[in-house]
């Protein structure tokens, strides 16, 4: 038997070296600086932060190691930096730009004198001196199953993943067999996280029982939902977890080919996954005879070309086959007849990422999280007008109110809450009265929204619901593949009506038409793009009908958002003589000086971008917004010297 070590034994060998490396990271000899360097970190300027650290460290001659990690999901605090200085607990700092990096080097890394409390977010480990992250509601209420290593390990270093228990689930499944894992996932009642919520175990079972071979598994990373980016984060921050889940799925159904379908708009995710595949192959964790067992898997990446409809299984398969991504009628389901007619299992990134921990900790553990019908956790990208936007992983079943107000800190700048849009273009807008709704597939569907892929946009009273509905229908109309008449033409007609409304045109008949047409589109469409496209219209009509009425009856946009129905003017009583702040910022030079050396807006030139509102110093706060535009008071404005002064001399 010595000549044939088991997968676990082989993995143990791999893990031993990894563990040593990990150990030395946790008892560092030199300071270690972790910088969050995923797409959102980069957008917030993490490259400048890294350069800042390098420069300052070189100047002072301090030896330190810089490690780039993925994203922790705390987008509001980017760029995030964790410093592990010998003798201190690992400390996390927020909004660290190049300047802050220099300060940290000078006062903390040089001798460990002052750990810079002003930028400190919290310590990662319990200690006596520093507040820990667990002291914040955001961390306290979160339950991290899928994202537990995101932002803490180096996605490009397989050893990090191995050291935190990576690929052990795969080794376990290699020993216990495919049937065992299918039963385990079925018993865990893991529902597909892509939006539909179909039980993954049942899907696997179908494909496992299909006779045709070879079989294919596909990881759906075509996250086209505007406003959702958790799949990208998972692929960028913990790619091996996705790959491990994919390999387990392949083993479960008996597939020999695995494809990761990733949006081409996510170049960093594509790159990270490709590097991870290469690293895993090198250690025999993917590829031929994985960990010495009788199981081989060929893994490849296919870049999705940006069609929202390709999130639909059958459309995704079409695009893999080199066709337009148009869905087809089901059955036969892809699990029976998919890519090139072969049995094909398609799972979302989040579903696959959940699999390793279920395998390791058991289905009982998984069922202890979340609700009875939907166990486990959900990841939401909570964005918009909340205090702490970012990715949040919570147990299924928590209420919307808890998520928005306690975990994400409520509405920014103390403005009132108006609506939350859940589930992207297929979801709905829910008002305050529905905030007690628990978050799970079934409850959300009951109130007309959808879990979707977990995009959540929180809006304050500045958002116009008619305009939001128009935006989503504009999106789905553009993304409709054109196969079903109701989806192709119906959404176009919806869009025309909504466009009219945002300009103040429409009638009672139009509102009735929106309702009936929406219902007909749902009935007459094949795939869930069409079936859910009218959701934003239906929910806004249901919860915010007054707003629709105000648009065409009073030509007024109550939220002051629809630009055809609003106007800006400058209140001469508040405007300060001689102040030029608004003049310089106006992109169309529509602001002129009045006869008493105050400012006024030329309504004909004004494009209503609202820049002057921000430019006006808060102590004057003289720019007013009104709807309808006729409400602008007559202030008897005369231009200086009888002519409108050129605004930029």
């Amino acid at each position: 038997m010595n000549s044939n070590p088991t997968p676990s034994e082989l993995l143990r060998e791999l893990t031993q070296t990894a563990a040593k490396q990990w150990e030395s990271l946790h008892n560092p000899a030199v300071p270690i600086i972790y910088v969050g360097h995923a797409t959102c970190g980069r957008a917030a300027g993490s490259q400048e932060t890294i350069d800042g650290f390098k420069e300052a460290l070189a100047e002072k001659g301090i030896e330190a190691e810089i490690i780039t990690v993925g994203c922790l999901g705390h987008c509001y605090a980017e760029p995030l930096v964790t410093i592990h200085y010998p003798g201190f607990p690992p400390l996390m700092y927020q909004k660290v730009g190049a300047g802050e990096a220099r300060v940290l080097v000078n006062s903390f890394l040089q001798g460990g004198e002052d750990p810079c409390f002003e930028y400190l977010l919290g310590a990662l480990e319990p200690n006596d001196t520093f507040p820990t992250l667990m002291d914040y509601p955001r961390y306290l209420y979160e339950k991290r199953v899928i994202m537990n290593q995101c932002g803490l390990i180096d996605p490009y270093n397989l050893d990090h993943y191995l050291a935190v228990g990576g690929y052990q689930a795969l080794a376990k499944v290699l020993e216990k067999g495919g049937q065992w894992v299918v039963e385990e996932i079925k018993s865990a009642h893991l529902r597909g996280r892509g939006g539909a919520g179909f039980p993954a175990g049942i899907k696997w079972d179908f494909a496992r029982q299909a006779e045709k071979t070879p079989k294919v598994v596909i990881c759906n990373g075509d996250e086209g939902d505007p406003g959702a980016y958790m799949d990208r984060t998972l692929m960028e921050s913990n790619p091996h977890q996705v790959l491990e889940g994919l390999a387990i799925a392949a083993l479960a159904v008996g597939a020999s080919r695995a494809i990761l379908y990733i949006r081409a708009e996510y170049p960093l995710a594509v790159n990270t996954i490709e590097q991870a595949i290469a690293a895993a192959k090198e250690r025999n964790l993917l590829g031929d005879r994985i960990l010495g067992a009788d199981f081989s898997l060929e893994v490849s990446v296919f870049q999705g070309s940006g069609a929202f409809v390709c999130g639909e299984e059958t459309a995704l398969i079409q695009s893999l086959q080199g066709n337009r991504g148009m869905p087809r009628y089901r059955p036969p389901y892809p699990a029976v007849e998919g890519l090139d007619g072969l049995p094909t299992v398609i799972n979302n990134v989040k579903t696959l990422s959940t699999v390793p921990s279920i395998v390791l900790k058991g289905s009982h553990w998984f069922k202890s999280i979340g609700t009875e019908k939907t166990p486990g956790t959900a990841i939401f990208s909570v964005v918009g007008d909340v205090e702490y936007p970012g990715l949040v992983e919570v147990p299924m079943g928590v209420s919307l109110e808890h998520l928005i107000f306690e975990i994400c800190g409520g509405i920014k700048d103390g403005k009132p809450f108006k609506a939350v849009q859940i589930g992207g273009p297929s979801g709905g807008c829910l008002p305050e009265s529905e905030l007690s709704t628990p978050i799970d597939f079934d409850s959300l569907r009951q109130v007309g929204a959808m879990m979707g892929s977990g995009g959540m946009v929180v809006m304050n009273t500045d958002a116009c619901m008619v305009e939001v509905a128009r935006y989503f229908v504009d999106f789905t109309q553009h993304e409709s593949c054109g196969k079903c008449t109701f989806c192709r033409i119906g959404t176009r007609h919806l869009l025309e009506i909504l466009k009219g409304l945002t300009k103040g045109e429409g009638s009672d008949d139009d509102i009735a038409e929106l309702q009936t047409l929406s219902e007909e589109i749902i009935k007459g469409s094949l795939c869930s793009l069409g079936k859910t496209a009218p959701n934003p219209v239906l929910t806004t009509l249901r919860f915010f009908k007054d707003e629709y009425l105000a648009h065409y009856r009073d030509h007024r946009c109550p939220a002051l958002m629809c630009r055809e129905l609003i106007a800006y003017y400058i209140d001469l009583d508040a405007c300060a003589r001689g102040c030029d702040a608004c003049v310089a910022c106006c992109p169309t030079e529509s602001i002129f000086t009045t006869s008493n050396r105050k400012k006024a807006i030329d309504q004909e030139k004004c494009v209503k971008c609202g820049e002057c509102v921000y430019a006006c110093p808060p102590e004057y706060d003289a720019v007013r917004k009104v709807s309808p535009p006729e409400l602008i008071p007559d202030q008897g404005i005369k231009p200086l010297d009888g002519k409108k002064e050129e605004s930029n001399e």
Partner: protein
Amino acid sequence: MVDNLEQDQEVDLEEERILDAIAAELPGISRDVHQLIPVLQKIQHIHGYLPRDSMGMVAAHFAITAAKVFGIATFYNQFRFNPPGRHPIKVCLGTACHVKGGEIILENFTRRLGIEEGETTKDREYSLERVACVGCCALAPVVVVGEKIESYVTPSKVEGVVTEIQVQNEIAERAKAQDEQQSDSE
């Protein structure tokens, strides 16, 4: 806009070069039609866009009709049919960006650069397009300029982005002129 560019002889020459390069590469690629989208992606990745004639060449390679290739290329949002500018500007109009005024930002670029979305300026310095979501919703509104993501964009920042590119171009030009002067004096 395509018509405008086609009048431009320089562009014609460049397009010819691109087509030659594609003709040289295609025979080495598998004729399996599954490779169709990856091939189109590769052409766009290397050359920045899909020249009209390239689609005919791809069709011939896979032994399918040019109409099918054109149908696929126009179906997917990723493909573009005119050359991108040296500074491609992508305005994100995802949900979060839209709510925070992404449309206003797009309008400001349109006005500032004098082109509509999907177009390229005549000097091929800038191109402007809208994208559905770049996945940085917490930093909305977002604009991607070249490879760099600009966050919390306002109309004034639009001005700043364009001015920055202009200033950098000027600096580069001046440095070049200085270098030439130095090499002349030597």
